[in-house]
């Protein structure tokens, strides 16, 4: 059976939300010049770039954008690859900076935990904050999102679909309700 869809954001509202998140990030940083945005692959990266552009518009500061690919840090992998690359865009300096981890959806908290380990590989930031487009609750770890685009409380059987123009050709955030499969 086809999943039902409920639209959360369309293009304009998404733009407004990202703009609000950018403002909040600036507010929460002690010094906007010390900001480093770290997007979590792959939609987190697109969001990080959009937020960086917004911050540039507002504050005339272009915060560096880094990329975190947490695949090597995921705790559900049995044999993490021994590699020196560690799935990091190693070019961004985070020492003494305010690092904003950016992702599309926060759920169990495992991705952010892994991302914190990845950031530790890069250096010692002064502070780490988390910014997400959608917080769907139901955390399994004591991790919080500091800057949230929208909170939704949904059950395990539901999905948040984030589509961004950069990767999906359209800006849209929706919920889908999967029907239990008939056996």
């Amino acid at each position, binding site marked *: 059976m086809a999943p039902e869809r409920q639209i959360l954001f369309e293009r304009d509202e998404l733009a407004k939300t990202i703009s609000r998140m950018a403002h909040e990030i600036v507010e929460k940083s002690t010094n906007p010049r010390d900001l480093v945005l770290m997007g979590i692959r792959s939609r987190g*990266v697109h969001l990080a770039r959009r937020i960086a552009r917004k911050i540039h518009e507002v504050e005339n500061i272009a915060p*560096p*954008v880094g*990329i975190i*690919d947490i695949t090597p840090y995921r*705790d*559900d992998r049995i044999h993490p690859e021994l590699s*020196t*690359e560690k799935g990091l*865009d*190693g*070019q*961004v*300096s985070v*020492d003494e900076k305010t690092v904003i*981890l950016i992702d599309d959806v926060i759920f169990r908290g495992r991705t*952010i*935990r*892994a991302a*914190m*380990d990845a950031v*530790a*590989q*890069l*250096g*010692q930031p*002064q*502070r*780490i*904050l*988390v910014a997400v487009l959608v917080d769907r609750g139901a955390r*399994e*770890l*004591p*991790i*919080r*999102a*500091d800057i949230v685009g929208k909170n939704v409380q949904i059950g395990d059987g539901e999905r948040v679909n984030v589509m961004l123009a950069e990767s999906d050709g359209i800006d849209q955030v929706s919920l889908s309700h999967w029907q239990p499969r008939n056996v």
Partner: protein
Amino acid sequence: MSLRSVISIADLTNDEIEEIFDLAGSAEKLRGDRVGHGRIMATLFYEPSTRTRLSFESAMHRLGGSVISCSDMKSSSAAKGESVADTAKVVSSYADVLVVRHYWDGAVQAMAEYADIPVINAGDGSHEHPTQTLCDLYTLKKEKGRLKGLTVVICGDLKNGRTIHSLVYGLARFGANVVTLAANGMELPQYVLERLEREYGYTLAPVASGDLSAVVTETDALYLTPKQPHQLALFTQVDTAVQSQLSTMVSGLRYDAFYMTRKQKERMKDGSRAESYPTIGESFLKEQRFKDTVVMHPLPRVDELSPAVDKDKRGIYFKQAAYGVPVRMALLKFICEQRSSKAAGVEKPGSIYESPEGVGPRCPNANCITVMEPGSTQKRFQILAGGLGGALILRCIYCDHRFKVQLVGHVKSKHYCAYDSSLEQTAKDWLKKNELAIFGSIKEAEERGYEPYKSGPQRTLMDESEIQAALAELGDQVVRDCRDANRLLILGIRTKGAYLAQRLAAQLAAHQVRPEIGEIEIYGSGDEIRRVSPADPDAAPLNLKDREILLVDDVIYTGKTVKTALSLIFRAGRPQSVRLAVLVDRGHREVPVKPNYVGKHIPSSERERVRVKLRETEHDEKDKVVIYSIVSPPESRTGRVA
């Protein structure tokens, strides 16, 4: 080290480098003399290499010596988890000289400490690559006839390139000017700049980007963004009177060489930064002002250096690669024949700090051998006084990173305080008497039994009955949220969190819930620093997989302790969930950690210390939570404070 190892370019004096260059100039003679005859060189490359390894091996063969190597470290005992210290000890008995490349910063230094033979660094992490620098300096000298007074532009990835770090020190030593042309976000690290300023008296000046915009690409597009603030010129021997005119000096500079580095595509996954990478193309060749500028590159190249330059006499990178063999022949001869060190390091002044407490500050470089494999190192730091604002700076002996000392303690009186410049002499005295302890955090100091030197008046925020009530409430909440009591595991963060974990478990027992109890050691000392273990030493090891973990600590502040605990937990197994219970939340979070259960919220300022006193740790004291301000420095310079 009595053996002559070359880990950093600083391990050779200028005279010795000149001597090696002279030897390299007569490489044919070295070949005839067969100075390597009867000697064995072992090569251990933990990271891939073509040029460095082949030129080392070729050099040894040409000297009449032999070579043993491990073709792939992944198939060696290193893959079975052998420490670099053990590998070094073992290989020492197989060879006369050891050439190592490793992916951790400082790993080769650690190996040299354990090896009984000279060790040559063929590149360690992003730290140094001294033999490449010898080849680079030799090439420059051959081409330009001198090194002093040359102006060299180093381009591209200046952050991760170990080649670059050794090269700038080398150029600095011989009195060349250095202009940096970094790709965006890949500037020279701060510690390298500091060392250039401090040890070689370099003056740094920003370069107007317009001046270097002549480094253009095939498309003629400017690959430098306007007003890019990061580019620097590093001048040698500029006196203060001329400093104000530095920017005009930059525009008048004659560039003798461009030193390109590889665009590391693997680090630029989506090409985001590719467009800011300095590139040399055909238009470079047409620029009149670069008619005498040579182009160097350690190779391999990607597309930052156009093949069009190959045919031009200014492109000297293949020569540079070819010099690798004679220079390494000269170095091998030099090392094999010189058994003792004349240089003893050009930069080894200052005092060495070894933590008397077994633990100590961690090197801030996450890729440093002291962090990756502490067992192979001794956690030694060099103390450099006189940082900005009188800060005390520690330099990691292994990877050269520097960081500020935050807290110092006195070993005998077991007191600590925040470091500030007025304590400089006191700290020096303590160091001399081996009584200085340096800590990374207050919690670390207190876990070692240190007390603050002086504290303001104390206020009690929670008394025994309030603590008891809070724990009872926490226990109720935990039971309510627990999905499967059989999978519950309570982990207390040592030491106070572990006591609280025991008390919480007692609360749960009232609800007929009797979970397993464990501890997490984060600030302990000894071999097994940082581990997760059962609270009862005789109990079976903990299995964290699919457990519902309740993490317990006394006070949550920045959240960094909890973050470390989470890392440890996930390294030990994959739990189904982790919840966090704390007696006190005092705010000021620096990481996105949030407790699920809080006994009491206590707003506090950053100068204050909230302390939980438990009867298990404080003799003859009742449970209470107190708050006080930390006042430092100590009253008495001798450290005898009541």
